[in-house]
């Protein structure tokens, strides 16, 4: 657990290679690599390059706007932000326990999103690397190439994602940026017709999800030399777990383990997250670097997301996915698997689990009930935590007596993986780039390592900022709209 290759000794003497933008991921990021005249790698960094400032401009807004505003952080998993904010605000409106209908409808929405996001990431974005090879022809290395050569796989990817999006539309009102969750509950239940429409397809979706697990399992186990070591680093890992230590994406308590799988903490109430997690700012990225306070900056960083969750829980509470989890744990051989490419395998296990949970929920008549909202004693502060597709997501708000937000703090999933992603690409750079001619295919290896984490660089830009140097903005006619200088 070192920061090796983070900062070169004399960067001015080195040659810079940039991957800009990192593609087939969501959002905006770039990688810079500094090499000497022998192509030895001296520095590798994943930079997050955009500024939003959500945490600031949410302040002063009435709290009920927040779940709808914050999902505009990220259109890939807007439901995660929508629900994490709603959960934090549940506490503020005193809704200690939601009605069964509200709880299950929110879960349905969330598991629908887990399914669509995992399908998108695996099929649309990553399958070209996994099916064609990391340095295959760049013109073919995309979903269009998959459509041409594996039309059935591509079509299933499209339809799996579609199903998840339909679950979201029916529970949230819209496929992207819906309005279904409100502080204290939800504003819509399912109609019988909607439920039947989803039920009609769910068994096919489960079958395809199982096939997807077997596809990636095969790809992984056929090439252990590559898949078990590519970009590997050891680290702590964290997620929330549900009752009895179940895999749970919607609710639970925080649990963390060290790189050997030993518990670091467990049953931690999410309201107290700040006692356990602290963040560091580094000058070269807008994305902060979180770590466990008790261990400290240097060794306290961790990873989140599917690979962390599937190994952190005690069991998965649905039969097919639990079976696949056991297969995975057996393959890992008794100690935690740290290989970044194993994220794909565990991601597909989670997609299968999401499909199974959706099936169970669709058989529950609570979804049709119109008992949707509760309220209780008003509080001034609340924390909402959820497992987003890419990992643990924290939303924390304070609200004053006029119902106006006075403080907002967010730790998005991808930020939790910041150090982890940087470690992975440094490992890949050392192994594949050092002392060789840098080619497009080799650079794609770096991106393959980043993609394994399914980073959402869009979310991660929410809180970015930097002092301006100098920039001039001209309109179509060449007239200056404004100019800036450092320190302005």
């Amino acid at each position, binding site marked *: 657990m070192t920061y090796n290759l983070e900062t070169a000794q004399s960067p001015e003497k080195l040659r810079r290679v940039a991957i800009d933008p990192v593609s087939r991921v969501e959002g905006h990021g770039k990688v810079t690599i500094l090499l000497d005249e022998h192509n030895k790698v001296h520095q590798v960094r994943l930079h997050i390059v955009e500024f939003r400032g959500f*945490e600031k401009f949410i302040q002063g807004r009435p709290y009920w706007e927040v779940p709808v505003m914050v999902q505009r952080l990220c259109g890939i998993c807007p439901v995660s932000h929508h629900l994490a904010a709603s959960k934090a605000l549940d506490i503020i409106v005193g809704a200690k326990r939601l009605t069964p209908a509200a709880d299950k409808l929110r879960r349905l929405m969330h598991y629908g999103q887990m399914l669509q996001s995992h399908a998108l990431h695996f099929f649309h974005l990553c399958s070209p690397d996994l099916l064609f090879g990391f340095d295959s022809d760049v013109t073919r290395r995309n979903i269009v190439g998959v459509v041409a050569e594996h039309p059935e796989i591509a*079509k299933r990817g499209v339809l799996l994602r579609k199903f998840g999006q339909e679950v979201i539309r029916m529970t949230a009102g819209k496929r992207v940026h819906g309005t279904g969750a409100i502080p204290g509950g939800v504003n819509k239940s399912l109609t019988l017709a909607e439920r039947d429409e989803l039920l009609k397809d769910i068994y096919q979706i489960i079958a395809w999800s199982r096939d997807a697990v077997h596809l990636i399992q095969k790809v992984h186990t056929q090439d252990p030399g590559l898949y078990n070591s590519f970009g590997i680093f050891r680290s702590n890992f964290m997620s929330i777990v549900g009752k009895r230590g179940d895999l749970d994406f919607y609710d639970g308590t925080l649990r963390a383990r060290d790189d050997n799988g030993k518990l670091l903490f467990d049953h931690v109430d999410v309201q107290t997250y700040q006692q356990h997690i602290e963040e560091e700012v580094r000058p070269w990225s807008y994305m902060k670097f979180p770590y466990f306070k008790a261990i400290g900056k240097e060794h306290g960083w961790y990873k989140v997301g599917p690979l962390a969750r599937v190994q952190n829980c005690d069991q998965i509470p649905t039969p097919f996915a639990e079976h696949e989890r056991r297969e995975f744990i057996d393959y890992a051989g008794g100690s935690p698997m740290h290989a970044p490419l194993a994220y794909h395998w565990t991601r597909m296990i989670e997609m299968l689990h999401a499909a199974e949970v959706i099936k169970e929920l669709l058989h529950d008549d609570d979804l049709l009930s119109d008992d949707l909202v509760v309220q209780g004693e008003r509080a001034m502060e609340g924390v909402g935590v959820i497992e987003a597709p890419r990992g643990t997501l924290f939303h924390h708000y304070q609200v004053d007596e006029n119902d106006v937000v006075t403080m907002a703090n967010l730790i998005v999933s991808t930020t939790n993986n910041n150090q982890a992603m940087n470690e992975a690409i440094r490992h890949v750079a050392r192994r594949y780039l050092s002392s060789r001619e840098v080619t497009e295919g080799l650079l794609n290896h770096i991106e393959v390592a980043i993609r394994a984490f399914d980073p959402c660089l869009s979310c991660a830009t929410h809180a970015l900022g930097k002092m301006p140097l100098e920039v001039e903005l001209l309109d179509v006619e060449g007239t200056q709209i404004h100019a800036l200088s450092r320190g302005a």
Partner: protein
Amino acid sequence: MSEKKKLRVATTSLAGCFGCHMSFLDIDERLLTLLEHIEFDRSPLTDIKHVSPGTDIGIIEGGLCNAENVHVLREFRANCKVLIAMGACAINGGLPAQRNHLPLTTILEEVYHTSPGLANGLIPNDPELPLPLNQVHPIHEVVKIDYFIPGCPPSGDAIWKVLTDLLAGQEPALGHGLMHYD
């Protein structure tokens, strides 16, 4: 596969949330049909990092929040025959423009100095980080835009309608039901 030469389409996300791109993918199976008529140039879906000269259609999500956005937008305008603003952020700045009533330094201070749970207070500053603009700007303020698709995001159906109209060589028209602003 049609006999006609495929149209080249490039897409990018500037200061947007990717929701508009997700909505593009919400054309679902029609994506497979679309691919019979178009090919992708630079896009988050491909590994082409710069838009190629002579690209037929450029689709922009998001407004302008930093110098890099401006640069990419100009590159799109220079190389695309038709340029489309997709979604509220591209058209009027959208939600990110909510920061426009606050000085940039105030927001930076908040995020990097006063926000809770920080070990160190420091505003990132590095030549690799593009310069943020003081305010978020809509893209039509900087280059000429040919078509605008409103919505946050526009529906997959709306995006499909505009693209199929263009493919058919006719003026895109959204019509009732597809024109919305939420």
